[in-house]
């Protein structure tokens, strides 16, 4: 019974976290609080507008109701254009992304210079958002679908190239070794031992990016690069809110159809 005496229930303290953990928690909470206070305090917002915002938003919503389907024909045509932009851009990207992934993968790159060139292309492509690419191409080629296709392509190269590069780096090296032992040249090794191994990854990545590109191409028109965004921008500029509502519904429908189609493709192809 000595032990029971030494450690009576009253002396036992239970804490969820130990001292160091608690200190880290406090530090994190303090840092977050400071960041938020600074952001709220410093940001260039006219606060009365904030309290008025729910009002304004519901007002806008009310003006949109009911959706106006009179321009449905033009909307559907623009939707098709959007899909074309996404699809063609995804297809064309393949021709650029595959060589780039080939030189950006450590096990296939011809030399160091190519490796760094490949990585630079991938990083540059991924760091600039589609709509910023679109801004640039609209400035160069003028408003229209070409700027849109190029913008989607330039962003997708980084995405597809990076993931394909990783797929190439993860291949089983043993068949490659066996092909080398037969006296096959490098090109034959690529088509025979590397390509079959990365095929499933390639289709998965392509389908994934097509899905993303459908979404991205809905906004290209806002900077003049073609697709449904052009009509959306026009409707907003003319305060045709019921038409805006119709366009929004159409975009949701498009995205959902795209999602259904990609999951179907994934099941069929992979």
């Amino acid at each position, binding site marked *: 019974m000595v032990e029971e005496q030494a450690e009576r229930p009253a002396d036992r303290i239970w804490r969820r976290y130990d001292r160091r953990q608690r200190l880290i928690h406090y530090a994190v909470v303090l840092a977050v609080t400071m960041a938020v206070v600074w952001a709220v305090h410093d940001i260039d917002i006219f606060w009365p507008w904030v309290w008025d915002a729910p009002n304004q938003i519901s007002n806008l919503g009310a003006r949109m109701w009911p959706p106006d389907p009179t321009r449905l024909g033009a909307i559907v045509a623009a939707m098709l254009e959007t899909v074309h932009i996404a699809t063609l851009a995804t297809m064309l990207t393949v021709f650029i992304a595959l060589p780039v992934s080939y030189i950006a993968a450590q*096990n*296939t790159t011809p030399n160091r210079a190519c490796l760094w060139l490949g990585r630079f292309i991938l990083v540059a492509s991924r760091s600039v958002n589609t709509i910023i690419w679109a801004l640039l191409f609209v400035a160069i080629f003028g408003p229209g679908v070409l700027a849109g296709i190029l913008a989607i392509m330039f962003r997708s190269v980084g995405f597809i190239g990076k993931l394909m590069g990783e797929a190439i780096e993860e291949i089983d090296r043993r*068949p490659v*070794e*066996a092909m080398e032992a*037969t*006296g096959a040249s490098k090109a034959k090794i690529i088509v*025979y031992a590397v390509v079959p191994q990365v*095929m499933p990854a390639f289709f998965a990545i392509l389908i994934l990016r097509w899905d993303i590109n459908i979404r991205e191409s809905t906004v290209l028109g806002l900077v003049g690069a073609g697709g449904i965004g052009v009509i959306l921008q026009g409707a907003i500029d003319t305060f045709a809110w019921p038409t805006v509502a119709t366009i929004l519904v159409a975009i949701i429908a498009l995205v959902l159809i795209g999602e259904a189609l990609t999951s179907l493709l994934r099941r069929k192809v992979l």
Partner: protein
Amino acid sequence: MLEISQLTKRYGQDDPVLTGLDLTVEGNSVVAIVGASGAGKSTMLRCINRLVEPTSGSIKLNGHELVGLKGAELRRARRRIGMVFQGFNLIDRLSVMENVLAGRLGYVSLFQAVTRRYPQADIERAFQLMERVDIAHYANKRADELSGGERQRVGVVRALMQEPEVLLADEPTASLDPRTSEQIMMLLQSLASELSLPVLINIHNVSQAKTYTERIVGLRHGKMIFDGRPADFTSDALDAIYGGIEAAQDEPPAPPAATRKHEAPHEPF
């Protein structure tokens, strides 16, 4: 005839993996190379077809020097050297026939390789060899649908498709169950005499080495310490090769990946 003389391989500044190795293999003899993990068996075989670059020494196949060959010449030399791997090294997603025909990659053009339009003679030979090892009915099956023993037979046929002048087998039975591994050893033995082909087999299983080969070479720490007929391979020789090396018999042989690790990490192929 394969003549290896003074073959040395060292990775970077480490101790040499192979030191001054001399070995001559003639005619259609089957040679077993035994030794503990890390004794240099795998490195030796890979030096022959230059998957591993020898540091110094000479390797001659039917009078042609292999060390120092580059580019197209090296590829032409490799065509004459068949290799069978421990992990089969098949391309899983391709059919058995495509894997078998891969043995002709050193001969056909890139266009033929891409479109799989191999010459009629190659296809004929592929069917004959596949029938010889009983896998012809799998021709259009995917390689990963086969069992281990069947996969290794695909590996053997692929190597024979090269019309090799020497066959290297790197632990061909280590990934197989005992029964299947006996079958593969028997197959290699009879192919050697049918095709009058010298065969070098790295093998861990000493009793199989004694049963299926006519010559045993023992390596320890990169040096040859036994070379003789199976009948002369006594328990003394066994001790000399494996003695003092812990659990040498049970330990699986080092996979090729482990040897590659020493080389330049980003080596392109």
